[in-house]
C-alpha cells in the first residue's frame, strides 16, 4: 500500500525560521533604537553587565527598553492568539479579542478611576506618579474582569455563539456610552489622561509588574494550545464539532476564558491596542496557507510579537525625538499592509472561509 498522502509540510520550517529571525532582529532593534541610539555592542554589554558599559545606557536598556520589548512580544503574541481563537470559534473573520467587550470594560474602569482621581484632588494622571500607573492597571483589570464575568455568565446560558457575539458587542456599546457620559463631566486634564491611555503603549510595564503580565499571557497561550484540536474541529462548524464528540460548552468556556484573559491582561497593562488581534491571525493564515491550529497558534504568536515590536519601533520615531500613539501606528501601517496582501492574493476569504 502506498504511503498516506500526508499534508504538505514544506512551508512549516521555513516560515517559522523566517518569523523567528524577524523577531530576533526586531528585538535587537527595540533595544538599540529609541530616543537615543545605542549601538548593539553596547546593548549586549549593558545586558551582560560587563565592566566598562556606559552606566546611563545600562540604565536605559535594563530599566526601560528590555521590559518594553518583552511587553511588546507578550502583548503581540497574546492579542494575536486571542483574536485567532475568537475568529475560529465564532466562525467570523472580523472577530477580534475585544469582540466580547473586554476593552470597553477596561476603558470604563480606567475612565472611572481617572475621573474619581480628579474629584479626589489629584489633577492629572502624571501627578499620581507610579501609584497612578498602578491604579490605572488595577482599574482596567477590574473593568475587564467585570465584563468578562458577565460574558461568562451569559456564555453558560446561551446555546448560540452568534447570540454571545451580539451580546458582547452590546456590552461594548453600553460601556462606551458610560465612558462618554463620564468624559462629558470630566475636566480637560482628566479627559486628556484618559485619551492618552486609549493611545496604548508598551512602555508602562515595570519589572515588578512583568511577572503578572508574563504569567497571565503564558496561561492564556497554553490554554489556547490545549484547545487546538477542538478549534480545528470548530472549522467545520459547531454542529459537526459536536457530532464528533467535542463538548461545545466546555470549549466555549475555554475559548472565552483564555481569549479574555489574554486580551484583558494586555489591555490592563498597555491600553486598548487595536488591529493586532484582528489582522495578525489573517497574516499567519496567509503566510502558512493553513487552517490547522497546531501550526496557526505558534505562527500567530510569533507574527503578533513581530508586528507589535515593529509598530512600537515606528511609534518611537527613532532620531526624531517625538513619539506617536501606538494605536495610530498599528492601524496606519497595518491596515494598508493587510489590504495589500489581501488584494494581491484575493485569498483571505479562501484561507479563512466564511
Amino acid at each position: 500500500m502506498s504511503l498516506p498522502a500526508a499534508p504538505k509540510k514544506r512551508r512549516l520550517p521555513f516560515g517559522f525560521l523566517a518569523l523567528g529571525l524577524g523577531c530576533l532582529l526586531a528585538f535587537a532593534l527595540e533595544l538599540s533604537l529609541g530616543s537615543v541610539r545605542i549601538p548593539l555592542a553596547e546593548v549586549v554589554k549593558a545586558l551582560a553587565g560587563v565592566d566598562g558599559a556606559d552606566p546611563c545606557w545600562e540604565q536605559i536598556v535594563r530599566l526601560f527598553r528590555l521590559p518594553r520589548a518583552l511587553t511588546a512580544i507578550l502583548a503581540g503574541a497574546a492579542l494575536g492568539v486571542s483574536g485567532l481563537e475568537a475568529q475560529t470559534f465564532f466562525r467570523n473573520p472580523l472577530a477580534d479579542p475585544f469582540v466580547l467587550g473586554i476593552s470597553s470594560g477596561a476603558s470604563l474602569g480606567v475612565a472611572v478611576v481617572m475621573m474619581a482621581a480628579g474629584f479626589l484632588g489629584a489633577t492629572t494622571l502624571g501627578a499620581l506618579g507610579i501609584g497612578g500607573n498602578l491604579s490605572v492597571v488595577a482599574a482596567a483589570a477590574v473593568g475587564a474582569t467585570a465584563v468578562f464575568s458577565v460574558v461568562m455568565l451569559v456564555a453558560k446560558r446561551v446555546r448560540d455563539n452568534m447570540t454571545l457575539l451580539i451580546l458582547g458587542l452590546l456590552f461594548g456599546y453600553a460601556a462606551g456610552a458610560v465612558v462618554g457620559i463620564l468624559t462629558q463631566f470630566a475636566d480637560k486634564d482628566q479627559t486628556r489622561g484618559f485619551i492618552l491611555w486609549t493611545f496604548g503603549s508598551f512602555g508602562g510595564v515595570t519589572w515588578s509588574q512583568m511577572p503578572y503580565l508574563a504569567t497571565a499571557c503564558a496561561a492564556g497561550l497554553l490554554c489556547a494550545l490545549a484547545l487546538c484540536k477542538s478549534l480545528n474541529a470548530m472549522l467545520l462548524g459547531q454542529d459537526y464539532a459536536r457530532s464528533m464528540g467535542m463538548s461545545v460548552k466546555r470549549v466555549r468556556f475555554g475559548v472565552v476564558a483564555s481569549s479574555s484573559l489574554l486580551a484583558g491582561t494586555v489591555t490592563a497593562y498597555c491600553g486598548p491596542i487595536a488591529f493586532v488581534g484582528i489582522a495578525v491571525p489573517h497574516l499567519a493564515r496567509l503566510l502558512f496557507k493553513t487552517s490547522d491550529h497546531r501550526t496557526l497558534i505558534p505562527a500567530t504568536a510569533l507574527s503578533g510579537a513581530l508586528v507589535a515590536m515593529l509598530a512600537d519601533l515606528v511609534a518611537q520615531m527613532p532620531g526624531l525625538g517625538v513619539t506617536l500613539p501606538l494605536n495610530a501606528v498599528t492601524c496606519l501601517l497595518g491596515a494598508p499592509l493587510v489590504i495589500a496582501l489581501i488584494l494581491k492574493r484575493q485569498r483571505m476569504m479562501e484561507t479563512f472561509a466564511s
Partner: protein
Amino acid sequence: MSQLTLRTEHLDIGHVRSRKERRVVRADINVSARPGEFVCLLGPNGAGKSTLIKTLAGALPPLSGKVFVNGVELGSIPPLELAKRLSVTLTSRVAPGAMTVYALAALGRFPHTNWIGRLGPEDHRIVQEALELAGAAELAARDVNELSDGERQKAMIARALAQAPDVMILDEPTSFLDMPRKVELTRLLLRLARDTNKTVVCSTHDLDLALRAADTIWLLPAEGPLLTGAPETLAFDGSIGRAFNTPEVDFDQSCGEFQIHKSPRNGVRLMASGPAKFWAGRLLERAGLSVSESGPSLEVDDALRFWTLDARRGEGVEALHAALSKLRS
C-alpha cells in the same frame, strides 16, 4: 436475529420551546436498522425528517422514548464514545478555510486521537482507506475550497468514514448536487453499506433514487404514523402516493415516477414509436394535453422532426408546440 445497530422505542421527537411548552413534531416512532442496511428517510417538506435525523444523531434530545445505538441508550453514551459509533453528515456546506481533503477527512479521527490530535500510522491508514472507500483518494491533496459540490460531499463522507462508526447518518446529502452526481452519491452510499457492513441512514428528497437504491424506506407522511418497508412494498400498497400526492401531481405506480395530472378532456391520439413517442408525450404534457384514445390525431416521425396534427403538416418541435398550444385554447 442479528444485532440491531439503530433502534427507537416509542420515540417522540420535537422541540422544547420553554419549560412548559414543547412542540411534538412526531410521536411514537419505532424503527430499527441492521448492519449493512441502507435506509432512506422520505417524506414531504415539513414532515419532520430533519428533526428525526437530529434526534437519531443525538443532536436533539428526544421528548420521550428512547434511541438505542448498538443496543445502548443514546443518552447514556458519552459524546466521544457516541462519536466512535455514529457519524453525522449535515446538509450545510462547510467552509473550513485552507485545508486539504486529506486534512478534512483526518478531522474525522477526532474522537480517536489524543489531546493535540496527533495521527498515528493506524490513523493515517484509516483516513486513507476512508478516502478510497468514498472515492475521494485522488482528491486527497486538493484544497477543500477548490472542490465542486459533488467532490466536497465525497470528502465529507470520507470524514464520516474516518470516524469509523457503526452507523452513518446523513441529512439530505444529495441536495446540492446535479442529477448524475445524485445518482453517483446514492450508489456510493449503497455500496458503503454493503462493503463496510455499516448502517447508513440518509434523508433525501430524491424519491426515485431512494426507491431504486434503498433496502428499506422510512416514510414520514405529513400526517399519520411513520411507515417502514421495502421500496416496492410502499410503492405498491399506495403509501408513497398518499404521502406525496398533491392535486397537481400523482405517483404513477406503473413507472415509479410522479406524473402531472391527466385531464381527459384535452386528449390527443398520439401515433409514434420509440424515443420519439416518449418525448412527444412530454411535449403534450407541457402543452397541457395528454395522450388518449380519442381527440385530434398527432403523428410524429422517429426523428421528432416532421409531424402531422389532424390534417396540418409541419416541421420542428417549436412549431408543434405552438400548434398544440393553439389546439388547447
